[in-house]
C-alpha cells in the first residue's frame, strides 16, 4: 500500500492538472516539532509539499466559506463532517468542493505530550510505528502514539469521512467506545454548585480573544451575537458572567452543528475545556432528536425542524 502522503499528492496533482480545482488545501510540514501547517497549493508543481501524518490537526473546513475558488480539500473524518454541515447549511456549494478524504487514526495532542515530558521543550519529534520519538536539550523519550491523542479522537465516531470524492487509503471503522459521553454524564450528575464551580474555574481563564470562534469551521456568522451593539447583549470584559455566557451561547448556537473536531480547544491559548460544553450539546441533540451533525448532506439540521411528539417533559 502506498503511503497516504503519496496518494494525497497524486490526487492533488491530477485535480490541478485536469483543471478540476483552482486550489488544493492540505498540510505541509510545520516549522516546529509535532506541527503540520495548512498549505495552499495552486499548481501541480507544488504538490510535493503536501504531507499527511498524525500532526495534521487543523480543520481545513474553516477556510471553505471564505473562498470562491473551486477547492480540493484534504479532510479527516471530523473535517469532512464539518464540510457536510457547511454544505447542508448553504455556506459552501457542493460543486465547489472536492473532498479528498483521509481515514484518520487520531491526532497528537501536543499539550498531552508536553505535560508527559514535564513541559520540557521538545526540539525534535519523529513518528514511527505507532510511537513518538522525542528529543530535547539533554533528554530523549519515546511515547506510544495511542496515549498521546486528543480526547476528541478517543471518542471519534467517524474516522473515515462520511462524504468524500476521493478516499486515500482504506476506510477504518469507528472507535468502539463503551460510554462516549462519560465526562458529560459525570458533570451532569453533580450538584448545581459543583457544576458552577467547575465552569467558573474553567472560564475564568478566558482572555476573550475569540480564537475559539475564529478557528471554528462552523462559526461562520458574519456578525457574532457578542459583537452586536444594537442591542449590546453581553459585556466583553473578563467579567465571569459575561465570559461564561459567551461560551454557553456559543455552544448553544453550535448545537446540531458541532462535529467535535476539537479545533476550538486547540486554538484556545489558555487551554480551556471548551469541549465540555460542546459535548453536552452533542449528547442532548443525539438523545433528544436522534441527530448527529455532518453525516448526511440531505439531513435537516435539528433546530430547523421539529417533530410533533418531541419530548417536552420540561414544559408545564
Amino acid at each position, binding site marked *: 500500500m502506498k503511503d497516504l502522503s503519496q496518494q494525497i499528492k497524486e490526487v492533488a496533482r491530477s485535480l490541478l492538472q485536469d483543471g478540476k480545482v483552482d486550489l488544493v488545501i492540505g498540510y505541509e510540514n510545520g516549522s516546529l516539532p509535532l506541527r503540520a501547517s495548512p498549505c495552499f497549493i495552486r499548481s501541480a508543481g507544488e504538490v510535493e509539499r503536501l504531507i499527511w501524518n498524525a500532526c495534521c490537526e487543523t480543520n481545513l473546513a474553516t477556510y471553505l466559506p471564505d473562498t470562491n475558488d473551486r477547492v480540493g480539500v484534504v479532510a479527516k473524518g471530523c473535517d469532512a463532517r464539518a464540510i457536510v454541515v457547511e454544505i447542508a447549511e448553504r455556506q459552501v456549494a457542493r460543486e465547489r468542493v472536492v473532498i479528498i478524504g483521509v481515514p484518520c487514526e487520531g491526532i497528537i495532542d501536543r499539550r498531552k505530550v508536553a505535560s508527559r515530558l514535564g513541559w520540557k521543550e521538545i526540539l525534535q519529534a519523529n513518528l514511527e510505528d505507532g510511537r513518538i520519538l522525542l528529543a530535547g536539550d539533554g533528554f530523549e523519550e519515546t511515547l506510544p502514539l495511542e496515549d498521546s491523542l486528543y480526547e476528541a479522537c478517543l471518542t471519534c465516531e467517524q474516522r473515515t469521512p462520511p462524504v468524500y470524492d476521493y478516499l486515500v487509503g482504506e476506510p477504518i471503522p469507528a472507535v468502539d467506545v463503551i460510554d462516549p459521553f462519560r465526562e458529560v454524564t459525570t458533570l451532569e450528575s453533580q450538584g448545581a454548585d459543583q457544576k458552577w464551580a467547575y465552569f467558573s474555574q474553567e472560564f475564568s481563564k478566558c482572555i476573550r480573544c475569540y480564537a475559539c470562534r475564529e478557528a471554528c469551521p462552523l462559526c461562520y456568522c458574519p456578525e457574532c451575537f457578542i459583537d452586536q451593539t444594537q442591542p449590546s447583549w453581553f459585556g466583553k470584559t473578563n*467579567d465571569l458572567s459575561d465570559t461564561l455566557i459567551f461560551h454557553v451561547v456559543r455552544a448553544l448556537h453550535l448545537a446540531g452543528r458541532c462535529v467535535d473536531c476539537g479545533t476550538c480547544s486547540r486554538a484556545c491559548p489558555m487551554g480551556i475545556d471548551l469541549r465540555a460544553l460542546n459535548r453536552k450539546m452533542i449528547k442532548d441533540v443525539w438523545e433528544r432528536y436522534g441527530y448527529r451533525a455532518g453525516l448526511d448532506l440531505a439531513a435537516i439540521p435539528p433546530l430547523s425542524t421539529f417533530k410533533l411528539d418531541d419530548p417536552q417533559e420540561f414544559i408545564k
Partner: protein
Amino acid sequence: MMDARAIDKGRIVGLLDELIERCEVFAPVMSDDVVLFDKIAWGSEARLDFGNSKRLPKEAFFPPSEVMFIYEGAQAEAPPSKGDRVLFGIRPCDARSFLLLDKVFNTPDYQDAYYVEKRERTCVVGIGCNRPLSTCFCTSVGGGPFNEEGIDVLLSDLGDRYLVQVISERGRRLLEGNGLLGEATESDLREGNRIAAEARERVTSMVETEGLRDRLMGMYDDPFWDALHQKCLGCGVCTYLCPTCHCFDVLDEGGEQRGRRVRIWDTCQSALFTLHASGHNPRPSGRERMRQRIMHKFRYFVDNCGEIACVGCGRCIRNCPVNMDLREVLSGIMER
C-alpha cells in the same frame, strides 16, 4: 558602578515574603498548565523554573480589561491609585517590551493615565534566561537573554543561588537593608558573566532585521501578502499573546445613570477593528490585516518610535494554531 549581591535559592521565598509585606508582588505562577503573572500572597507561589510565561507581564500595566471610570449621574471617577508593586521574575524580552509600550502610552502629548500611573509605581525584577527556547530570537531584534533594558534588578541563576545585580536606583531602594542578600563574590560575578555569554550563544534562532524596514517600504502592494494570509484563521492569538501589542477598544457597560467605561484588548486581526459605522472597511480581508500587523511592528513603529515593535519572545510562533512562523514571514520579506 554595578551593585551586585547574591542569594541562596532556598532564601528566595523569604525574599518574596518580605517584599509581599511591603508591596504588591506579581510573579509567574502556574495555573493548570498555563504560566501567568499574578499577584501572589506567598513567596512559595512563584515559579522561576519555567521559561517564558504564556500570559504577559504587561497585564500588570495594561490588563486585558480595565475599568477606566465609574460614572453615576454627571460624576465620573477613575479607580484610585494603589501602592508600590514589584514584578518579579520577568524575562528580559518582556522587560524590553515595557520600554516599547512606554513609547505608545507615555508620549509627551498625551500620557495614558492608567498605564503610566501603574508603570511608575512598579519595580521590575528580571531573571536572565540560561536556556532560551528554540523559538526565542531576542538577539535579532536588539535584546538578549540577559539584557538589562527595562529591568531594575536582574537575577542570574547560578545553580544553587542567584546573582542579584542592582541596575537602577529604584532597584537599589527595593533591596535596601534586606538581610537575606549577601555580597556577591568575584567568582559569582565571573560565573554570571559566563552564563550570560553562554546563553547568548544558545539563542540560535536568527532573523535578519537589518534593512527590514526599508524592504517593507516598497512592499505595500506586493503579491507577497496575497499568499501569506491564506492560512491565517484571523484568531488573533498572536496579538493577544504579544508583549508589544497595545491596541484596545473602549466600551460602556451600564445604563444612562450608572455604569462604567471599560477598555479591553482588541486585535488588528479582527474585521471589526476598523469597520466604520457606515459599513466601509479599510481593511476588509485577512490580507490587509496580516499586512497591518507586520507593517506596524516592523515598519510603522520603526518610523514613529525608532525601534522594531517585537522583542523576539516567540509566543506568536509557539501559540499560533496553524503554525504561522513569524521568523519565516520575516525571512520571506527579506527574500523579496
